[in-house]
Every structure is written in structure tokens, then in C-alpha cells.
């Protein structure tokens, strides 16, 4: 009977962070990945936040496959034919060590997995875990894979198997995902010469730009769009809550196609060669949607535990951090000679609560609900903002005071004074 200290299911950011930390501390680790290679089942925008990775691999910049470091962030609110937005660009973001990068996950995950293997973990790919093995008391003692003689055992199993987490669901650790708590994002990657990317976005060398978008592109659904610059490609995508997708008749790929045709977006992607179309779910239920994340012989990390900060578009850093905290908990218990019982693994939850992960999720705990029941944030306001800007900027012989009155009247007409004040209050309460 083959037995390890720890089995990690999944080779995404959370699983890799856990496996790396454990192997480096000298524990015997088996990591199981269902893809052909680590990364071949994984999808992200993708932005890498340096901080979470630095805590694991301080010198990651030396050989990690990074696309561009972000020096400019654009936030666009789009109407059907226009956008109004802010661009923040600073040379402070151009001073190493850089704070965030665009990455291509297939490349990045392979690199991360190599680090995991160098640290001493055994990584097997092309293997799907079918279920958890439990003893009479219900304690998790291993996993069953789809290989011949596919049972393997461990003191503790870390579920890093992503947003769908079939394992946690089947074991009853987590209920089926609620369509209100998950966003579906679709994305394409368009290749073009490096020089074209640089000219279109006013950047040079490894500088990069990200654009986050909100408004009519999601057709009244709660969601956002994005466009990220990679080395010689751009990633463009759009994501909306599944509960909203369920209520309408536009397919995700039509939504993406219409977004790409927006007059402000189309020139940025035109002429590119589309080389891959992807889709992925993002757990956006926030604080209230987080399930029990530990028990007798098991722990949940990353997307599987719904660790995503939707407001700040952060996920992979929460994944890496939860993976690391789970691993550190196991290391501490192992060194103290204590068993991997639910009572002892509760230390993981304490560490989570003490970290930015739970603190941030708690801060925005009411945000998902507010946007769900108030879709004016995605339709009415983008339209009003755009029209106001157009009215003010168009030179047509009408005096500015009349224009201001016109704008104010349009806001009142669409949303009433109480509505406007109420919206401001809701946002203030959710953000404070």
C-alpha cells in the first residue's frame, strides 16, 4: 500500500503552492493532475500578482514565463457606441521589482510545476481522481484515481481541484454551486506582432496595459469585460453571472463577439490571429459562499473553496495564499507529531481568518447581493455617464449651464432622486 504524507489533487496555483511548500519542508507529496500536463486544464485572464508568489519563490522573476509587467490600468464604462473611463499610468509601476504581470497560464503552470517537482514532490498527470477514500469514521485516508490499481493513501488530502470541485461535492463537503455565486467567462487569445501590441497600447519592451470594462457590453447582466496585453498577443474576454445568463437568450460566444465589435474595442484586436477560445467559471459568491474548508483528513484550497475577491479581480493570489497556508498548517502539525484530525486542521481556518484572504472577503461580503438586485449599475449608469460626457463635450452653441441641467434631468428621469441617493448609499455601505 502506497502512502504519502499528503496528496494534493490538482496542479493549478493553489495546488502548486501547497505541494511546493510541503515538498520543500521535506514531506512526501503526491500531486495528481488530470490534464496532459500541468496547466492544460487551467484558464485565467491572466494577471499574476507578484506578492503571493514572492512569498513562495522569492526569485521567481529569474525564470518564470512572464508576458508583460503592468504599467497602466484602464477602467472603461461602456455605452453601446462609446466609453467613458479613467486611465492610470505611472512610472512607479515601471521600477523593478514589478507588482503584477500578464501571464499565459499553460506556460506559467508548467514552470510552477517544475519548481514543485524540483522541491521533491511526485507529480503525476493524465490522471483523474474519481473519489475520496474514507475509513469507517469518515476520515479521509486517500483517493481513488482512474488508473489501474488507482488507490493511493495519505495522512491528509488537499482538494485543489478547482471551481467545480467534483470531489468536495460528492463527499458532501460542499453543496452544488448556486448560479448566483458563479460567473461564466469566455475568452479568446489573439496573436499579432509584438510591435503592433506596443503601438496600439502605447508601450515598449515588456510594459503592459490592462483594460477592465463594465457596462452595456454585458447586455444588462452583472459582469465585466477585460482586455490584457501579452508579449505578442492580447487576451480579450467577458464574464457574467450564471444566474443572469440563465434569464436571457444570448450565447456566451455571441456576447463576446458583440463586445469585440464595439467601436472602441475593435481597433485594438483587429487583424489578430485567434488561436484559442476558452471558457471558465469563476466562484464569485464571496464571503457568505465559502464552505467548510477542512475536516478529518481533508482541506480545501483555491477556487474549490470559493476563494475569489470578485470586486478586485483577484483569484490566483488567493489560491496561492490558501495553498501555502494549508501546507504550513500541515507542516506545523507534522512537526508537533499531531494527527490530521478536523480539530487540529482548524488551525488552517485560523490562519485564513488572520490573512488578507478572509479580511478582504469579509470587507466585501455584501457586494455580490447589491449588484445582483441592482442591475442599473450595469445598464442605466453607463448610458447616463456616456450621454453626460457627450452632452458636455459636444460644442453646439448651447450654454454649459443648460447642458448641466439637461444632464441632471436625465439622471432624475432614469433613476429618480431617491434611486440615485439609494444607489450611492448602497455602494458606500458595501465598499466601506
Amino acid at each position: 500500500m502506497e502512502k504519502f504524507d499528503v496528496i494534493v489533487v490538482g496542479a493549478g496555483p493553489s495546488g502548486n503552492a501547497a505541494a511546493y511548500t510541503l515538498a520543500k519542508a521535506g514531506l512526501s507529496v503526491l500531486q495528481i493532475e488530470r490534464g496532459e500536463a500541468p496547466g492544460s486544464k487551467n484558464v485565467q485572464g491572466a494577471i499574476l500578482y507578484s506578492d503571493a508568489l514572492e512569498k513562495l519563490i522569492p526569485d521567481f522573476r529569474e525564470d518564470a514565463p512572464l508576458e508583460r509587467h503592468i504599467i497602466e490600468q484602464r477602467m472603461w464604462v461602456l455605452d453601446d457606441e462609446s466609453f467613458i473611463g479613467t486611465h492610470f499610468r505611472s512610472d512607479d509601476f515601471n521600477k523593478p521589482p514589478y507588482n503584477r504581470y500578464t501571464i499565459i497560464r499553460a506556460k506559467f503552470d508548467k514552470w510552477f510545476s517544475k519548481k514543485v517537482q524540483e522541491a521533491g514532490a511526485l507529480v503525476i498527470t493524465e490522471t483523474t481522481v474519481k473519489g475520496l477514500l474514507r475509513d469507517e469514521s469518515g476520515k479521509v485516508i486517500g483517493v481513488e484515481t482512474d488508473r489501474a490499481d488507482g488507490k493511493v493513501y495519505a495522512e491528509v488530502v488537499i482538494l485543489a481541484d478547482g471551481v467545480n470541485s467534483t470531489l468536495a461535492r460528492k463527499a458532501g463537503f460542499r453543496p452544488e454551486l448556486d448560479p448566483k455565486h458563479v460567473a461564466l467567462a469566455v475568452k479568446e487569445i489573439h496573436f499579432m506582432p509584438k510591435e503592433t501590441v506596443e503601438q496600439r497600447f502605447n508601450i515598449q519592451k515588456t510594459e503592459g496595459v490592462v483594460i477592465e470594462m463594465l457596462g452595456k457590453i454585458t447586455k444588462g447582466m452583472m459582469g465585466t469585460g477585460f482586455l490584457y496585453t501579452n508579449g505578442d498577443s492580447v487576451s480579450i474576454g467577458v464574464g457574467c453571472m450564471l444566474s443572469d445568463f440563465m434569464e436571457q437568450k444570448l450565447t456566451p460566444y455571441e456576447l463576446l463577439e458583440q463586445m469585440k465589435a464595439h467601436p472602441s474595442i475593435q481597433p485594438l484586436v483587429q487583424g489578430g490571429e485567434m488561436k484559442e477560445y476558452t471558457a471558465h467559471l469563476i466562484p464569485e459568491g464571496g464571503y457568505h459562499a465559502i464552505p467548510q474548508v477542512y475536516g478529518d483528513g481533508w482541506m480545501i484550497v483555491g477556487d474549490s473553496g470559493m476563494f475569489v475577491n470578485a470586486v478586485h479581480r483577484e483569484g490566483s493570489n488567493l489560491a496561492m495564499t490558501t495553498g501555502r497556508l494549508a501546507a504550513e498548517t500541515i507542516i506545523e502539525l507534522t512537526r508537533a507529531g499531531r494527527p490530521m484530525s478536523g480539530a487540529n486542521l482548524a488551525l488552517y481556518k485560523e490562519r485564513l481568518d488572520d490573512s488578507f484572504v478572509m479580511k478582504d472577503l469579509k470587507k466585501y461580503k455584501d457586494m455580490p447581493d447589491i449588484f445582483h438586485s441592482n442591475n442599473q449599475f450595469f445598464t442605466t449608469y453607463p448610458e447616463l455617464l456616456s450621454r453626460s460626457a457627450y452632452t458636455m463635450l459636444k460644442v453646439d452653441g448651447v450654454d454649459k449651464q443648460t447642458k448641466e441641467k439637461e444632464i441632471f434631468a436625465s439622471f432624475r428621469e432614469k433613476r429618480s432622486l431617491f434611486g440615485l441617493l439609494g444607489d450611492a448609499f448602497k455602494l458606500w455601505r458595501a465598499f466601506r
Partner: protein
Amino acid sequence: MRTVKVEEKLFQNRYLVDADNPHIRLKDAELCEKKCTTKQCTVCCPAGCYTLEGQKVVLITDGCLECGTCRIICTTYRNVDWEYPRGGYGIQFKFG
């Protein structure tokens, strides 16, 4: 009629299809045909795996992106039997 052909998008992707061994099945196809009025799987699936033939829902998983949407949105009947493909099979993202 859909104006965008999802097949053209999926054509760019790399798949190792587990022939004759679909990882997603409809538990009871008749339920989809006769009871389900919304048939939102035929709208929401980002790979267009679910199509309508008259009132019948036809599922072909070859282009599946393994996102999980179909399972989660089938809230009324929970009629989707959803597993990951066998190890090594299914979508293999080149970029992700």
C-alpha cells in the same frame, strides 16, 4: 439562427476526444424534451454542446470546455450527469 459559429472558434482548440465515452450525459433525455420549458443549456453552454432538434435536446460533448455551466444551470431538474473526462482526455489548453 445564431449569427456566430462556435465551431469556428472551437476549431482553434486542441482536444483529445475519448471516443464513445462522453463525460457528460443527460440522465433522462425525455425530461429535457417534454418537461423542461427553458432549455437554457442550449443557450448557456459556451461550446454549443447542447443543440435543439425540434423539442429534443441533443448533447455532443466533443467540443466541451469542461467549465461546468450546464450542470449548475440545470436547477429545476438536475438532469445533467457531469464528470471530468478520463485522465489525459478532453480539452488540452494551449494557452489557457
